[in-house]
């Protein structure tokens, strides 16, 4: 069993049903505040400033804590206090399930202990899988950057579940957004996304509503792949690998990336949706 969210684990074990999970996630959405939302509630930050910080968060490499400090209205002391309030008020999925009377507290504790044990094993397995794959450094670079940017653009939880090598085929119902990089090596990185995720990514990137499966979505997600590819080149250059990206492209066919021999497939959960980050080396 790969890495997963606790709610997903409970669902897979039959401890809760899908309706219970949706109810718990809804309770979390209505209760949990980001650091910036909390700062506004506590009167430490003007709402207009908060919007600027959130926009910057979606489009830069900086974390929310760093941005709150940078924007000058919150000092270290206030930030620590906000983090403390956020931690104490945070409704975890287990507590949300108890609040909705889907599980008892004792049941949550019991499942949580088993879940943590499985997660430790899953994390060790992921590390071993990274080390064993054809090009660990490149795979890790693309997978980490993809998860980082997907979190920003979807504004939600994104988690690496499993890493495998396979034939590189495109699962049905997904579109491939890819980019080749050439130079010291030839690599192709790709996001295989179902249309719901592509739409969310495109909206997060452009900042305006977009229609499912439209040209705008395809164009925007290709540009997201271009950003991941460009940043990967920058990161790999620091390790002495010189690469240059080609223009990104999108396909619905089962297109392989030229003659590249190996496809490293990272299965990723973005909220409730599954997607693949692929690296052809």
């Amino acid at each position, binding site marked *: 069993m790969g890495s997963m969210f606790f709610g997903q684990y409970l669902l897979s074990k039959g401890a809760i049903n899908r309706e219970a999970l949706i109810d718990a996630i809804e309770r979390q959405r209505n209760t949990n505040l980001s650091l910036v939302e909390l700062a506004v509630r506590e009167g430490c930050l003007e709402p207009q400033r908060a919007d600027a910080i959130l926009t910057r968060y979606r489009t830069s490499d900086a974390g929310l804590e760093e941005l709150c400090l940078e924007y000058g209205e919150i000092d270290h002391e206030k930030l620590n206090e906000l983090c403390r309030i956020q931690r104490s008020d945070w409704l975890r999925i287990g507590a949300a399930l108890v609040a909705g009377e889907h599980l008892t507290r004792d049941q949550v504790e019991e499942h949580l202990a088993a879940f943590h044990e499985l997660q430790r094993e899953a994390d060790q397995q992921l590390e071993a899988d990274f080390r064993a794959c054809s090009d660990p450094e490149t795979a890790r670079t693309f997978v980490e950057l993809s998860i980082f940017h997907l979190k920003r653009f979807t504004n939600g939880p994104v988690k690496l579940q499993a890493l495998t090598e396979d034939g590189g085929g495109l699962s049905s119902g997904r579109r491939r957004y890819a980019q080749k990089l050439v130079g010291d090596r030839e690599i192709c990185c790709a996001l295989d996304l179902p249309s719901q995720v592509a739409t969310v990514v495109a909206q997060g990137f452009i900042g305006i509503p977009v229609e499912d499966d439209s040209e705008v979505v395809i164009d925007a997600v290709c*540009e997201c792949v271009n950003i991941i*590819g460009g940043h990967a080149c920058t990161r790999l*250059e620091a390790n002495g690998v010189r690469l240059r990206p080609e223009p990104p492209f999108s396909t619905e066919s089962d297109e392989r990336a030229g003659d590249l021999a190996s496809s490293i497939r990272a299965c990723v959960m973005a909220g409730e949706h599954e997607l693949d980050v692929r690296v052809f080396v």
Partner: protein
Amino acid sequence: MARWRVMTVDDSAAILTIIAAYLEDSEFEVVAAERDGIMAVERFAQERPDIVLLDLIMPGQSGVETLGRILAIDPDAFVVIVSSLGTEDAVHECLTSGARSFLQKPFTRDDFIDFMRDLTQVA
């Protein structure tokens, strides 16, 4: 308010949309937006914008090739490369080919406007 005439060149319509939205209600006016390097050179010759924001990685004619053709028309053209690629090699190549500055994608509205205003100090 002085209006700076800007041309944007990027094969991504999303980026052209984002830049146009960021520059709305500012002292910058987008007078041309092209998704192709060859068309961009023609539009440059017609419009003679104050600032060209030029993507680096484009199908067909690349950003560096487009830069060279724009500078052949006007050696004083003020061309800025806007790219997701931030490698030392890429930045060095662009600046030695005649680009005046380099901006790495992605960027926020505030950062972008600040960057554009800094450009006007030297453009």
